[in-house]
């Protein structure tokens, strides 16, 4: 906390938005970070297209992957995304208890997502479907694996904000609310990536 307060004295626009940009620092920062993430996942999607277009044969993806689980996971993630909005709006409405409830729901749903993902992986490994078996499987594991790591990162950050990180609420509620908004933006992004991953890998 000590460092944070000291920082606050030196650096403006941690809490307030700057007039000419209409943003506070962290919100600007997260948008930039997400732009770079788009380039990262974009490179993987482009690789997918290039490898698939160049392939002499390509498996029927929906036969290979568990479409019902994938669809269920999409629903879970979208729901989780809605929870984090509620968590943020609860803070805006000054209702900390409600924030905690919705943040935990966000986290629990994210954990559900990872569990189902784990079941899928386990099924593949049981059938000896390892990344090295085909370029499609390699892409599948790379893209969903990287996405799962992003989910995991989000879970860790969200747990921090709902536990010890939430002490900031009592000293500087608006700053804390900003942090939750930023966490929410990240969470939506991870959600959107999945919305693209699911049809690309499971359906087409």
């Amino acid at each position, binding site marked *: 906390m000590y*460092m944070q307060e*000291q*920082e606050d*004295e*030196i*650096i*403006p*626009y941690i809490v307030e938005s*700057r007039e000419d*940009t209409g*943003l506070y*620092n962290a919100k*600007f*920062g997260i948008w*930039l*970070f997400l*732009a*770079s*993430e788009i*380039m*990262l*996942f*974009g*490179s*993987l999607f482009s*690789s997918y297209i*290039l*490898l698939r277009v*160049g*392939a*002499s044969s390509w498996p029927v993806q929906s036969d290979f992957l568990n479409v019902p689980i994938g669809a269920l996971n999409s629903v879970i993630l979208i729901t989780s995304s809605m929870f984090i909005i509620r968590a943020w709006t609860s803070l805006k409405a000054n209702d900390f208890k409600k924030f905690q409830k919705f943040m935990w729901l966000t986290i629990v749903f994210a954990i559900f997502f990872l569990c189902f993902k784990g079941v899928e992986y386990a099924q593949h490994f049981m059938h000896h479907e*390892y*990344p*090295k*078996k*085909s*370029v499609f499987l*390699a892409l599948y*594991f*790379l893209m969903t694996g*990287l996405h799962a790591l992003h989910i995991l990162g989000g879970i860790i950050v969200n747990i921090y904000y709902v536990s010890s990180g939430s002490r900031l609420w009592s000293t500087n509620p608006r700053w804390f609310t900003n942090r939750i908004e930023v966490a929410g933006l990240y969470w939506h992004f991870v959600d959107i990536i999945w919305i693209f991953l699911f049809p690309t890998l499971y359906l087409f």
Partner: protein
Amino acid sequence: MSISKKPSHDASFVQKYVFSTDHKIIGIQYGLTSLFFLLFGFGLMMIMRWQLAYPGHALPVMGTIFGENNMPGGIMLPEFYNQLGAMHGTIMVFLGVVPLGFGGFGNYLIPLQIGAKDMAFPRLNLLSYWIFFAAGGLMLASFFLPGGPTGNGWTSYPPLSDLAHDGQSIWLVGMFLIIISSLFSSINFIVTIFQLRAPGMTFERLPFFIWAQLVTAFLLLLAFPPLEGAAFMQLMDRLLGTSFFLPSGLDVSGQVLTNISGGGNALLWQHLFWFLGHPEVYVIILPALGIVTEIIANNTRKPISGFNYMRYSVIFLGFLSFIVWSHHMYLTGMGTNVTAFFQTTTMLVSIPSVIIISGLFITLWGGSIRFNSPMLFALAFLPMFGFGGLTGLPLGLATTDIPLHDTYYVIGHFHYVVAPGVIFAIFGGIYYWFPKATGRKMNETLGRLHFWPTLICMNLVFFPMLIQGIAGVNRRLYDGGESYLFMHDVLYWNVIISWAVWVMAVAQIPFIFNFFWSIFQGEKVTSDNPWEATTLEWAAPTPPPHGNFTKKITVYRGPYEYSLEGASKDYSPQFEKDI
């Protein structure tokens, strides 16, 4: 808006100088670390140049310290040559020049020049430096692997790199860390420039250095992540046996690989690599252009001519740099339409580049030039960098690139850009901002003793490479071309080049001595603005304290208002209300 009330002297030494969140300390840390790497990468090249000048002869004095596996009897093995070459390229680019121009100068100067007290995210900044440090340590550590560091060139093309020994995996992890570190820096720099400008510091009033850093940051932000993706793929190929970059039926030393699934594409790596690799060129160049612009405005005592055009040019350059990458791949058989596209975009790049360089040249016209050390380096930068750019044109056109590709012509071309170009700008920047950081000037005589021999040697090193390249000498030849009869006519240059490299090393001694000596013994500056400059960093105390400024900063005018009519002196600082 007084500076932090918490006195900084109660922070421990470690907090203050090692794990500091102060942008100036971090900038200096970046600067010193990357200067070390620059010297290290240069050292590798000095050893390689012995082998090129005297192939098969034992390296005198140091020959035996590299071990029997690398240099039996002091004679360099081809594998070791490749490893040194790959590490020279990697270290120079990713651990030397970029962290110096961006991490070093950017960190130190951005908050000062926009009138901010620090970066927007100081702790992220700290993290960024230490991740970079770890990446550097990892790259160095790979020299001690049983198989040595990677030997696949700084480009790491598969399939070779997929099948190479462990050094390659370390390289990939190191690159991953470097990309993460520069991602953090770039977010920090962009947010800082947009959010923390002092009152009155509109975008029109930002110095060119800031514009250059801003565009650089966007390039790092958007062009580097794809290589991260590619690094994951290559790591999976290497560690999990996947085939992202390995085609079916791949033949290795006469044997078809059977333990892989195949179905991959080696060119995919090249696309992803050069999607980073070309913007990387601008990441190297733009901070240097920024530095040179500041020095030239200050030492011609004139506004920068066409500053407006230069600003738009640098933005346009940033955009264009994303759509030219395949000019590195004309030889891969891309098809004429694709080639035509990339050839056109590449030629378009010369327009903004020429505008910027012309602006700087025209600024010299009629200026009352002060020939101090920073200015000498800046003045040499212009023709050297320009020449590097011009020699690049034949490489941008597919027809002329095909015979020149992978020859020493390419090496000569891009080294003109990065060595007597960018490195000179960096030297100039060090001489120029040294008084702000230390309160003392570097010695002028030693500066000249550094400048002239370095300038002459640079040209003796790199011009002959163009000649050799046109004669057909390939790059990455461990014997310098000795085993090819047709190259023999131009091989005598190898000896000249190598001796010029070693003499150039000696010419760095005055600089290194000057640098450390001046910290303690240099001529003290008597004012906070010893060069009589106009930008905001000169409004800060010398050296600037934590929080940078002791008075409230308001910006009243553009960055280069020199020799204004009706002004009381020949410079009108941005931070002074009356001219």
